[in-house]
């Protein structure tokens, strides 16, 4: 058993368990936290597949931005109204089951009928290489250095702006 397989089993079981825990919890906030854990495990799986860019984006965008926003909304929302939305409406339940069945069939097809041992075409190899941290870093620090620096100033200005608008006390 090599390290890759051990890591795969570990991350896959974390992902599977956390997603089951997520859908069985009553409290929506706890569900959301388990979804974050699931995203982290998925990011690890992407790393094992050498898809470094997707792994980083998974953590930054889904876990960092979208889930945190989601958590804030859940905490601010009234849990009762959310309960009503999901439990009392049969149509929503029906569509949820329909969509998950669709995704399940898709994944099952990929797993059982896909050809994982096929050799990659040169185009596919190029697109895999474009997703590595090395290539992206090289582009960011050579061709795209100016937009990269401007993005830094954008974040600085946004931080100062948020401080000005939200600081508790201004002398």
């Amino acid at each position: 058993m090599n390290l890759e397989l051990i890591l795969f089993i570990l991350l896959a079981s974390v992902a599977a368990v956390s997603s089951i825990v997520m859908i069985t919890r009553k409290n929506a906030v706890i569900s959301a936290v388990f979804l974050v854990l699931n995203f982290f495990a998925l990011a690890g799986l992407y790393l094992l597949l050498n898809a470094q860019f997707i792994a980083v984006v998974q953590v930054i965008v889904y876990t960092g931005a979208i889930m945190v926003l989601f958590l804030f909304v859940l905490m601010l929302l009234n849990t009762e109204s959310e309960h009503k939305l999901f439990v009392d409406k049969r149509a929503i339940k029906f569509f949820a089951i329909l969509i998950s069945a669709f995704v399940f069939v898709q994944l099952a097809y990929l797993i059982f009928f896909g050809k994982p041992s096929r050799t990659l075409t040169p185009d596919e190899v190029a697109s895999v290489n474009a997703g590595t941290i090395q290539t992206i870093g090289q582009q960011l620090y050579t061709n795209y250095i100016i937009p990269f620096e401007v993005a830094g100033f954008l974040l600085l200005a946004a931080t100062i702006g948020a401080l000005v608008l939200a600081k508790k006390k201004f002398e």
Partner: protein
Amino acid sequence: MPQNNYEYFLLMPQIIIAVGIVLSVLIEITTKKSEQILPWFSIAMFFGTAFYSVFNINQNFVLFSGMIEVGGKPAIFNFIFNIGAALVVLSSIDYLKKYGTYYGEYYILIQSSVLGMMVMSGAKDILMIFMGLELMSICFYVLAGINRKKLSANEASMKYFLLGAFATGFIVYGIALLYGATGTTSIQNLVENFVTYSSNIIFVLGFVFFLIGFSFKIAAVPFHMWVPDVYQGSATTVTSLMSTTGKAAAFSVLIIVLTAVFTFNAPNVFRPYFATISALSMLFGSIVAISQTNLKRMLAYSSISHAGYMAIGLAAGNMFSVAGIIFYLAAYAFMNIGAFTIISIVEGEDDSRTDFDSFSGLNDKSPVLAATMALFMFALAGIPPLAGFFGKYYVFIAAIQSKLTWLAILGVLSSVISVYFYIRVVVVMYFREASEDFKINISPYSLIAVVIAAFFILVFGILPDTLMNVILSALP
């Protein structure tokens, strides 16, 4: 990646502002009196950058592997942005105490927004346009609501943010379609293959989305809904920055993406779009401004109609119209900053004294303010020999050259309507008794800003060739 170290030297204007922002943050952190140091630091920086840009106007290069252009057209825009921002900072020094936002952060945000504008005006890649636009817009959203205790400022900031985010959505969607149609974000490629792309429906659709987003930013009808409330609700100095330099930055981007039309005589497929928004903006702005009683709101509607006049140049789409637009933007920056600075001097606490009634009999209270305000109003109305007249003149001539005589006639008609509400201010100031009793504390710094603006309007009006020759020499 720069080809050699000389590229850093050529990028000096942007680097000065960028280093200045970082230093300002350090000053803000380390001293207690940042609100007294930062305005002078900013003014020195802005003047330095403005004059550096103008003196190096012949050093026209595209740097950093086709990302940013320096010298030439961007240099003139840098001059407009920096002088405009310097005048706004000068007029803010005493205004901020009155407005209740005597913070150092205000100046850092102005510096950042100017950096964003400079990135926009020199952009040679759509990514740069987007980065610069966001940097500018985010600073403006915050500046609009800089006084958290004022409801009007909160409303202005919120409205500006929501509608601005909506416009950004349009722009990003447009950029995505443009990238899909061309496979690159380079503007060089866009300019070279503009004619081929023009027959591609995805490209045209993406371009129209892009233009709609920027129509929000230049405040043209029918994307003007936010303008009156935001301009009235924000601090007066902030409004003068947003309405002049912000508009100039948005126009610089429109000129960049339409370079193929202006420089290489590619067919202007977007002419119907620009002709429509310019006709609607001119007439709507001028007619609605007549019924306003608040001076800031009136100038907001006048800003809409001025966007319409400038859009005539985009519809005309020849080399001369670009020069006309840039001249107009420079003149408009000084006229509007001057007018808003006078409003900020007269304005009392809690947004009071911005109505016409407060300006009645201003001549008796302060002859200097009344005279300069009259000058700005005549310039905005486009009465010769002031700078505003020549801005309109160049744009209208360009329209006639491109056989858009009907648009030029509409423009003249709308100017005639607009004379009514500009002259009304002058009549109120000189021929009416003061209806409110208050004493005006004229801030010396604001007065200097007013005098500089008036000086530029007179120079550009009496000797329009001085500016026009510089602009024409900068265009390829």
